[in-house]
């Protein structure tokens, strides 16, 4: 019998394919309604910090340096009111084997695949995660396929994604390069069925558990360097894994009062599935096109219950413009001697602005860097943007318009953050849960779950439900 591989038929087999390909039965954590037992899932399917540290040590992942950005701190203080300007530290995650924090995530997925006896792993990603999975698979002698969205319909490749594809091939992975469209997921499902490989999803409990060591190390290193807990940790936010894993690691290290701040590049106005818009953005991740939809509906991921749930941990969510991140990428190289980025520097741009609100004795941490080079450098991206008809100029970054104009600040004082209304995101998330699970009424369990999942209290969830006309 031949399998029906039409789009509809494959999508209809999604849950069955996924269950085989991640080796998790999500059913056991379900309540039948909106609620599911998140912590039990993380406990039973994930690993403890000590186990993860052991797994990551086997392939040289983690224990990256924490570096104090003394010149950028000095600059922030010059621009801040007297007594203001927190010490800025950066966690140099580019020191991981494939050059980003994504190795932490991949290390546990690939370990798991090997332990379960899979012959290979597949990842659907246009980001650094592909290189991370390919590198870890090489170390553990597994085959690796990476599926990327790379080209528009004219066959023009996004330089950064082309570079990430090159890196995957350098580690011996097969790289499937697709044109724009969400049906990447369809191709991915077809490949999982055909090969029987493990789905190294970004969103499994063990993938997220792999990032917890990052938060844990930040806590340990900040304490050793300053004798205090970090006051704020700024995390580049896209699919939610970076925020979730880092925040969980900080909590496991006992940092109860550390503010968890998410930062995304503002790409408002560009459609993520648009063939035209695809090559008019200069950031391929860490942007609002992922950050907002994944916050308000995390279970859109390639697994039934996403372990990355950013609203569960975020205290604050801010955006910065493309031009501001390019400026800070340049500043990091010129003042601190570190050529890194670009997307990982989103949190750096935000931290540079937020440090000026904080007291001098406080500590703010930028929790990642990523490797850079051909395709990824600001010069590569801005050259490409100009060729695509996007205007590049100096000015006030408030004038930045994604897809039309990238404004490089004229002065560092112009680097500011824009607040994202977390309350609106929380409400949207609760509303999406109600719609998706088609519930007429919230149970006590649902209310408890939604309060935890939005970092609020049960009365807040009741109030939102009432606003939405849902009985409780």
């Amino acid at each position, binding site marked *: 019998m031949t399998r029906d591989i*039409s*789009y509809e038929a494959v999508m209809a087999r999604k849950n069955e394919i996924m269950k085989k390909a991640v080796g998790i039965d999500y059913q056991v954590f379900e309540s039948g309604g909106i609620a599911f037992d998140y912590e039990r899932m993380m406990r039973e399917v994930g690993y403890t910090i000590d186990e993860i540290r052991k797994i990551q040590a086997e392939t040289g992942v983690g224990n990256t340096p924490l570096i104090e950005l003394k*010149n950028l701190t*000095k*600059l922030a203080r*010059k621009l801040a009111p007297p007594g203001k300007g927190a010490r800025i530290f950066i966690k140099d995650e580019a020191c991981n084997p494939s050059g980003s924090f994504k190795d932490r995530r991949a290390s546990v997925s690939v370990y798991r695949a090997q332990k379960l006896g899979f012959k*290979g792993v597949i990842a659907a990603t246009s980001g650094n995660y592909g290189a991370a999975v390919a590198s870890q698979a090489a170390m553990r002698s597994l085959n*690796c*396929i990476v599926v990327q969205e790379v*080209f528009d*319909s004219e066959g023009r*490749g996004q*330089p950064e994604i*082309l*570079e990430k594809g*090159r890196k995957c*091939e350098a580690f*011996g*992975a*097969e*790289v*499937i*390069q*697709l*044109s*724009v*469209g*969400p*049906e990447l997921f*369809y*191709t991915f499902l077809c490949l999982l069925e055909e*090969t029987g490989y493990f789905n190294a999803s970004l969103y499994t409990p063990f993938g997220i558990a792999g990032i917890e060591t990052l938060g844990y190390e930040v806590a340990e290193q900040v304490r050793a360097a300053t004798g205090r807990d970090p006051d704020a940790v700024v995390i580049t936010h896209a699919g939610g894994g970076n925020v979730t894993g880092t925040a969980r690691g900080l909590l496991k290290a006992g940092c109860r009062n550390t503010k968890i701040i998410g930062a995304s590049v503002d790409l408002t106005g560009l*459609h993520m*599935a*648009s*063939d*035209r818009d695809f090559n008019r953005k200069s950031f391929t991740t860490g942007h609002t096109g992922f950050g907002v939809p994944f916050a308000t509906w995390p279970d859109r991921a390639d697994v039934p219950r996403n372990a990355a749930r950013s609203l569960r941990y975020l205290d604050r969510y801010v955006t910065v413009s493309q031009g501001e991140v*390019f*400026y800070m990428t*340049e*500043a990091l*190289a*010129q*003042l601190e001697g570190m050529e890194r980025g670009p997307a990982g520097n989103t949190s750096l741009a935000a931290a540079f602005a937020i440090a000026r609100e904080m007291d001098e004795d406080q500590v703010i941490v930028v929790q990642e860097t990523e490797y850079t080079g*051909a*395709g990824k*450098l*600001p*010069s*590569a*991206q*801005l*050259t*490409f943007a100009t060729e695509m008809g996007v205007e*590049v*100029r*100096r000015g006030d970054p408030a004038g930045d318009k994604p897809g039309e104009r990238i404004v*490089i600040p004229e*002065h*560092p004082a112009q680097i500011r953050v824009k607040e994202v209304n977390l309350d609106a995101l929380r409400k949207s998330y609760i509303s999406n849960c109600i719609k998706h699970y088609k519930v007429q009424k919230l149970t006590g369990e649902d209310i408890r779950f939604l309060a935890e999942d939005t970092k609020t209290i049960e009365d807040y969830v009741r109030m939102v439900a009432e606003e939405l006309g849902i009985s409780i």
Partner: protein
Amino acid sequence: MPDVAKGTWVQIHRVVLGPEERSPHLPDDTKKVPLELRLKGFLTHDACIGDEVEIETLIGRRVKGRLVKVNPEYDHGFGRPVPELLTIGMELRKILGGDGR
């Protein structure tokens, strides 16, 4: 006479879904174009550019498609110097009290 020899490193191209087979939830511009796939590997037989061929990928999977490139190059680069970025370092050192070198 086939001009690309068996064993050559090549790129193939394939249409995965025609415009009419695509997801119903797409913006208008994407709806009009097919979902395309490009993949690299070693030719398993002699062929000409434009032929339907079979390749063996880096992990040994055999895949069919139209032969489009021979020894495909990585053509992404560092870009041109960007005037809007070039002076940032000097400006910042001046603010910090240096001479801008």
